[in-house]
């Protein structure tokens, strides 16, 4: 164990707060989504599977071995997506915090499986380029893990097809900055597409709804 008890206590609180903050900032619904923080080169703390973020306690977070995610101690049963968090941390030593979540606007591009172009300097700086879409795979599967790892190459965020978004930062604060810029950029991309397709100059949800109903309504 290459970390101190004090550091572990601090990071347990970071993980607990990350779940609550995802809910507060509307970046997740219910118990879906998961986060991780690195303890040392071969260990991380992750959120447990399927439990209410508000009710979770710092001591509920399990310690998972990065090189073999079937090995875990303390806390409750870890998220089934721990393999993705572990794969990113194993491949990239500079990454110490990861977030997988399902925010609304990111989910639109994940569902359409569309790569998000760079929408701002902030996105370029934080994400590192256009955000790719990883291949579709059922939750918890090797296919989903491999698709996400591939799409994350040279990037700090990617979409998971029909699923959500994955973000990685040097710490949890940076990982949150990344997920926020992804959400903001997706929303802007959708607005720009709506204006282009409708030929209007000013966006409103009503403009989008009217176009949708006229084209897809029964």
């Amino acid at each position, binding site marked *: 164990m290459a970390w101190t008890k004090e550091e572990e206590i601090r990071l347990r609180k970071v993980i607990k707060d990350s779940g609550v903050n995802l809910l507060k900032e509307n970046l997740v619904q219910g118990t879906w989504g998961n986060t991780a923080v690195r303890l040392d080169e071969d260990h991380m703390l992750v959120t447990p599977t399927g439990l209410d973020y508000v009710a979770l306690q710092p001591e509920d977070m399990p310690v998972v071995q990065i090189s073999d995610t079937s090995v875990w101690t303390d806390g409750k049963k870890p998220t089934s997506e721990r393999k993705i968090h572990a794969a990113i941390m194993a491949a990239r030593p500079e990454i110490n915090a990861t977030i997988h979540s399902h925010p609304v606007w990111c*989910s639109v591009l994940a569902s*359409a499986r569309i790569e998000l172009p760079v929408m701002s300097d902030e996105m370029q700086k934080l994400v590192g380029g256009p955000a790719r879409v990883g291949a579709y795979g*059922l939750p918890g599967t090797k296919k989903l893990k491999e698709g996400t790892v591939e799409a994350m190459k040279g990037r700090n965020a990617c979409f998971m097809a029909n*699923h959500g978004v994955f973000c990685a930062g040097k710490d949890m604060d940076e990982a949150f900055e990344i997920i926020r810029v992804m959400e903001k950029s997706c929303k802007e991309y959708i607005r720009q597409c709506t204006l282009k397709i409708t030929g209007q100059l000013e966006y409103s949800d009503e403009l989008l709804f009217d176009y949708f109903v006229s084209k897809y309504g029964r």
Partner: protein
Amino acid sequence: MIDNRIKQTIADYAAKIVAEGMNGKGDRIAMRTKDGFCVNEANSSLEGLKGDDLVELSLDTQDREYALIARMFQKRPEIHAVLYTHAPFVCAVARAKATIPAVLDDMTQIVGLNCKTCKSATTEDLVNGLKRRNSVLVPDGGALTVGRTMDEAYTCALVLDKASHAYVCGSVIGGNKLINCIEAKLMNIIYQKKYSKVNQENISKREGE
């Protein structure tokens, strides 16, 4: 007499629905009770709803205003909460009388393989529309969502709202790529039977059921 925890749960979730902007005219929030169910009064708003603003009815009520909710509790013994909400993107789909296909994993888990807009707003059509699903859309109206707990019904409404964003916006930006039916069914079964079971049991105690 309605249990105080149920009153508080309803007031809390009504406030959450309003905070999320999913409220509108004709909203309903209902929970099963020992003797039937309790619900906000017809034509009352969810804004500022308090536990004392609720009415308690038996499941065999003939009152037209509440018969639909009573039928849902009768037909689905496992559900303990029913919501009727009006999130703007959901209402756009209901206005188009469209069906939201399997656009997102979490939608297939909690909402169902798709979410249809019923042909009509009759009790029969709406109850049938909820078969093997936790949500159905009312033509030119909003969404009915149900859950084993109020928290699950509320989460279902949130996820449905997100799926509506994905479907409406996805149609505009180039089309949705759908999850295949077998994978969608598998996720639905795993969620209902395993993933959420312990959590729903814990929440159920907290909500006063």
